[in-house]
């Protein structure tokens, strides 16, 4: 078995695509229409374009438990997904400049430094730098 995709729940796929590509810097890899409203929409990191794909998954629109779970995590401030970066402080400064809102500013956590931001799609995302 091989890990090829991980999903992130979003309420609006086009909005999510814009945020994840224009602000976070991911690259669109696959865009396949599923039906009138949904797409199989995946992203990859610029430095690992053959690596794991991130699926912008519209489950909260169609499956109530998914929406409830996403809302509960968001409300409690929990990030369900995290991305590695070289330098959390630099990424924090860059994203603040793009009006991204953080619930946790860069914080040392022993062997790592973290920060948490709102992806505007219903999720908290954690950035991690290995110190």
């Amino acid at each position, binding site marked *: 078995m091989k890990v090829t995709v991980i999903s992130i729940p979003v309420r609006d796929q086009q909005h999510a695509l814009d945020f994840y590509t224009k602000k976070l810097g991911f690259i669109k890899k696959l865009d396949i229409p599923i039906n009138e409203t949904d797409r199989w929409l995946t992203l990859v990191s610029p430095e690992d374009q053959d690596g794991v794909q991130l699926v912008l998954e519209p489950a909260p629109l169609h499956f109530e438990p998914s929406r409830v779970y996403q809302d509960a995590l968001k409300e409690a401030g929990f990030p369900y997904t995290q991305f590695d970066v070289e330098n959390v402080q630099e990424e924090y400064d860059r994203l603040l400049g793009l009006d991204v809102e953080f*619930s946790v500013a860069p914080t040392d*956590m*022993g*062997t790592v430094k973290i920060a*948490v931001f709102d992806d505007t799609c219903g999720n908290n995302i954690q950035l991690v730098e290995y110190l």
Partner: protein
Amino acid sequence: MSIYQQHLENYKAKKFANQGQLDTIMAVKYHIDDHFQEELNLDVLSTEGFVSKFHMLRLFKKYHGQTPSQYLTGKRLEKAKELLKTGASVTETCYAVGFKSLGSFSALFKRRNNISPKEFQKRATLKK
């Protein structure tokens, strides 16, 4: 303060209460980062961190989730990829990152990446 922020504070207070241990184990990690191309073993690393080797091994696993040896291997393979992308030969890369045997390096690289170093380099070059 959100539930997650409380969780972070509790975790940090519990997990990283011993600053001395953390400093020691980070010093060992940084030593691996700076000297991965050299011959490193537990004796050298424990000397670096001024702790007994078995204590260092336990601490390293506790804080980094893997043994120093596993971390070192990962670091060498990560650096090998960087070198291969710049056009260095497989043999040059193997020795430059600290492996002692070309056969072992190639086999390990393939096992971890499902692709040989040569093929990895070919694909990386094609993308440029």
